[in-house]
C-alpha cells in the first residue's frame, strides 16, 4: 500500500484510508475524497507544488502534506 504522494502524473489509485482526524476526514469526504473512490493524479505543479487530482467529476488541488495522508491501493486495470 502506498500514499497518494507516490503516484506519478496520470496514474490512478483507489482510496483505502484517510490517515487523519475525524473532522478533516469529514471535510475531505465533502469534497469527494472518500474511501473506495478512484483517484487520478492529473498533474503536479512545478517546484514540489500541489497535485492536481480528479475524483469522479471533481477536480482539486491538494498539497503534498495532505496527499501523504491519503493511503491508496493500486487501481486494478
Amino acid at each position, binding site marked *: 500500500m502506498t500514499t497518494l504522494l507516490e503516484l506519478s502524473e496520470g496514474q490512478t489509485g483507489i482510496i483505502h484510508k484517510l490517515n487523519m482526524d*475525524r*473532522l*478533516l476526514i*469529514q*471535510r*475531505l*469526504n*465533502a*469534497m*469527494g*475524497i*472518500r474511501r473506495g473512490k478512484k483517484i487520478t493524479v*492529473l*498533474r503536479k*505543479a*512545478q*517546484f*514540489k*507544488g*500541489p497535485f*492536481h487530482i480528479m475524483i*469522479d*467529476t*471533481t*477536480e*482539486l*488541488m*491538494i*498539497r503534498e*502534506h*495532505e496527499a501523504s495522508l491519503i493511503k491508496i491501493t493500486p487501481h486494478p486495470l
Partner: protein
Amino acid sequence: MKRIALLGMPNTGKSTLFNRLSGSSARVGNWPGITVDLHAVKTLLGGHMVELVDLPGIYDLQGLSEDEKIVQSFINKHRIDLAIVVLCSAQIERQLSLLLQLQKLHIPCVLALNMHDEAKKMGITINEKLLAKTLKMPVVKMSAKYGEGMPELLKVCAELINQKITTPVKKIKPLKTSDQVSNEKTIQHLIKASVKYPIQLNDKNTKKLDALFLDPYWGLPIFFFIVFSIFQFIFTLGKPIQDLMTQFFNYFRVDFLEPLFINHHGIFQSLLLDGLYLGVTTVAAFVPIIILFFLIMSVVEDSGYFSRAAFMMDALMEKIGLDGRGFVMMLMGFGCNVPALMGTKIMRTKELRLLTMFVIPFSLCSARLQVFLFIITALFSAKYGPLVLFCLYLLSFFTIFISALIFKHQFKNKEPIIIELPPYRFPTMNHIIKRSMLEIKHFLTRATKFIIIGVLLVWALTHFPADVPIASELSYSGQLGKWLSPIFHPIGINEQLVIALIFGFIAKEIVIGALAVIYGVEGTALAHHLYTNVSQIQAISFMIFTLIYTPCLSTIATLKNESKNLSFVIYSVSWALLLAWVFSFIFYQTSLYFST
C-alpha cells in the same frame, strides 16, 4: 417576516442564483452574533414579503472553518423558514451530504439542481421526480446563469413558505460515525436509483484548456501575461477616469464651492473645502478603480482561471505561509491596495486571509509611484533615477516576503489547503456587474465615515492654531514634527518632511501637494527647492519610509472592514511604522557612514 436561506457548497453558482432572485436591491446585512457580512434582500414571494439571505458556501455543516462556523451559528441563532439548497448537478453525488445534514435538522428544504446544462452536456441524467419522492422535498432542475427553471423554483418556494411548520428546527449537533455511515448509504442508494452517468466522464474543453494553462513550461509565462494584461487594463482605463474626476472636483471647487462660501469665515470655509470636501473626493477617487477591479476579478474567478493561478504559484507561497491566491492579490496590490484587500475575500480561511491582508499594504501602489517619480526626477539624473525606482520595487517585494516569513507562525493556517479546480465556465455579464456594484456599495458605506474623520483630523492638525500659516512649523502638525524630531532625525527626515508624511497618511496622491503648501512653492520651483534643500540620501530615506509606513487612510479603513478586528489593524499599522523606521535607519546611517 419569513426568512429563506441560500445554502450550498462553493462553486455551485449560489451567488448567481442569489443575484437572480434579489434583483439589484441586495444589501449587506448585519445579524447579531454573526461576524461577517452576509448579503440579504427583502423580496415579494407568494404574496408575502420574505427575507432572502445568502449564506457562505460550505462543504460540511459540522466543520470548523470560518464559513462553516458562520453557517452553524446562523442556523442555531436565527430562524430559517426555508432553505434553498443549491447543488452543482454534475457533482450531485458528493454534494448530497450537505442536504441530508440539513434535512436532519428539520429545516424545510428545496433542492435546486443548478448548472443542469453542464451535467446534460457531460451526459449525466438525473431523474428529479424520483429524487423528490425519495427525499420528500421539491427538486428543481435549473440554471441560474441562463435563468432556466426559475419560475418553477419560485413557485415551489412560495408554496412551501406558506405552509405551517410542524416540527421545530433542531440545533446542530456533532455527527456520530453511525450517522455518517447511514448518510453515505442513503446517498449511494439515491444516486443509484436516480442518476445515470455516462461510461466516460469527460469535459473535453476543460482538459484542453488545462493542458495549455497548466503546461509546465508555458503555464507561468501565460499567467504573468494575463496578470500583466489585467493590470494594464484596470489602470490604463482607470487612470484617465480618475484624472478626469480629479479635474472635475477641482473645477467644482474653484467655480462653484469657493464662490459659494466666499463670505464665510476663513476657518469655516477651509473646514468645508480642505477638510470635508477633500475627504469626500478622496473616497470618490477610489470608485472607478474598485469597480474596474471587480469587473475583471469576477471574470477571472468565475471562469475558473483563478484557482489555476493559485495552483501554479502555490509552491512558492507555501514557503512563506501564504497560498497561490494570495500571490495574485499581492500583485494586484501593486496597482492599488484597496481592491486587492477586498479581493482577499475569496480566501475562506481566516489566518491565511489575515496574513495576506497583512502583507498587501507593502505593495508599491500607483499612488506611491507618483510621489517617487516626482522626487526622483527632482533629485536624480536620468541615469540613476530608474535604478532608484527599481530598488524601491525590490524593497517592496522584500518587505512583503520578510513580513510574511516573520508572521507566518502568528497567523498559522490550520486548515488543509484543498482548492477546487472547477470546469472553465463563461462568466455572465449580469453577475459580474452586480458583484462590482455590491462591492462598491460595501466600500462606500463602510469606509466613508472613517476616511472623512481621518481627513478632518489631519486638517485640524495643519490648520490650527488659527493665527499661524497653514502646515507651518507653528501649526500643530509642525509642533508634532518638532516633537517627533528625535525619532526622525536619525533617519534624515526633517520637520517639513514629517509634516508631509502626516498628510501622506490620508493618501499618497496629496503628498506632493502638501510639500507645495509646506514650502510655499509649486511644480518645477518645488522640484528645485527639494534639489537644493534635501540631499539624495535624505530623499531615498524619505522614499523608503513613504513606501513602507502606511499606504493611505482608505487602505486602513479597508483593513478594518475586511478583518472586522481593530487590534489587527493597529498591529498591522504599528508593524509597518516600525519596519519603515528600521529600513530607513539602516539605509541612512550606512550611507552617511560611507559618504563621509
